[in-house]
């Protein structure tokens, strides 16, 4: 059973990994997916399995951050332009 600080640490790690994606859409998707996934499993009965799955997903995100950085979009998303 993961402790509260371990869970928050996993959440933070996923957010930090999301930041490394050069593509705005993917970056925002990972943040959204992380927040939704954590809230969906707030009262999950098999918390240990959910936590293990989250850690596996973090590893996937870390690998994909490298792959996506090799194929970064040439133009930035319009959502990133500051007025």
């Amino acid at each position, binding site marked *: 059973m993961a402790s*509260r600080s371990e869970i*928050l*640490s996993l*959440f*933070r790690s996923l*957010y930090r990994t999301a930041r490394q994606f050069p593509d705005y859409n993917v970056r925002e998707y990972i943040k959204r997916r992380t*927040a939704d996934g*954590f*809230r969906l499993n707030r009262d999950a009965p098999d918390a240990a399995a959910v936590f293990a799955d989250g850690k596996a997903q973090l590893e996937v995100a870390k690998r994909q951050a490298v792959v996506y950085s090799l194929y970064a979009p040439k133009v930035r998303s319009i959502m990133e332009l500051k007025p």
Partner: protein
Amino acid sequence: MAARSALLKYLRVNVQLAPQSARPSTPFSVLVRRCFSDEVRGSFLDKSEVTDRVIKVVKNFQKVDPSKVTPEAHFQNDLGLDSLDAVEIVMALEEEFGFEIPDNEADKINSIKLAVDFIASHPQAK
């Protein structure tokens, strides 16, 4: 061979010892300034400016009612946020101020006042 040595005699370059005064000596005060320049040392931000920027970031957070945001607001008690939202706000503050807040410090930040105190006391915040 003879031609070569004759040629070398004319091609010789005279080397003179450079006068000692030509080499600029760096005064100690310049060295001190260089070692502790603003980029390396960072500078502390003004507390009122930090407060304004923190409040702006929190107001932009989608789950927060902007009218409830005050400099003394507590994330969980006053703004109705949960611990995950608090993490999200701290991450947004990192992006706003351009430095990384370590996990153990980030866990302690649960109100606007604590966030302002931490950022104002951090030299790398910009």
